[in-house]
């Protein structure tokens, strides 16, 4: 056995075929980062929706803008993915769904529920 042989390293993320559980992990991070960036906008909308009846109507009007609808659909995907993946991690913490087969199954369920939520929002808005 030649242990000095240089082993191939595949750290190029586009060459690695990632398991579904890894995709959930990365999406959990990405959706979390996106949601943090959205916090100021959410606080701003909360403030305006509560300031007066007029500013409340302005917020309602804003929700009908095309760019806002796109943002709401992406935001719904992010929040629901983060929500369902978070529940999955909490369950794994208490030893539910730790086995490889069930962890893979629950990862697919998270992706599916996030997609369904985003499509539901799209259906509501469009």
């Amino acid at each position: 056995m030649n242990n000095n042989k240089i082993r191939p390293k595949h750290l190029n993320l586009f060459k690695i075929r990632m398991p579904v559980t890894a995709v959930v992990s990365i999406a959990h991070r990405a959706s979390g980062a996106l949601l943090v960036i959205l916090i100021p906008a959410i606080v701003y909308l909360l403030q305006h929706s509560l300031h007066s009846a007029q500013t409340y109507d302005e917020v309602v009007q804003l929700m009908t803008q095309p760019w806002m609808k796109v943002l709401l659909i992406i935001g719904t995907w992010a929040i629901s993915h983060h929500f369902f993946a978070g529940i999955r991690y909490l369950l794994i913490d208490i030893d539910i769904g730790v086995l490889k087969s069930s962890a893979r199954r629950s990862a697919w369920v998270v992706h599916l529920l996030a997609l369904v939520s985003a499509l539901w929002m799209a259906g509501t808005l469009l």
Partner: protein
Amino acid sequence: MSKLLLSTGLRAWVIQRFSAVYMLVFVVYLAVSFALRESTGFESWSAWMANPINNVAVGLFFFALLLHAWVGCRDIIMDYVKPFPLRLIKLVIVAVMLLAMGLWVLLVLLQAANY
């Protein structure tokens, strides 16, 4: 035990779980509360937010959210930003932004409570 509480890794882990569970319960409460509401529009929305229970629950939600965001951002920055000065600068920027958000929410909720 005190040694356990002082280790920042475990503390971050515990904060992340507790804030997550609170937000989970809050979201369910919010969904039920809105499903059962009798009217829509500004009047009913501002009345809902002026209710002390809801007002405090929303305040605690944002407190949990900002703690949760802090732990998450800290994890991301510690994973990807290696040079110490840069890491410190980014952590300070995030901390200041989240603290500012907390103060802003406090202001909004105090105004909403008095409406």
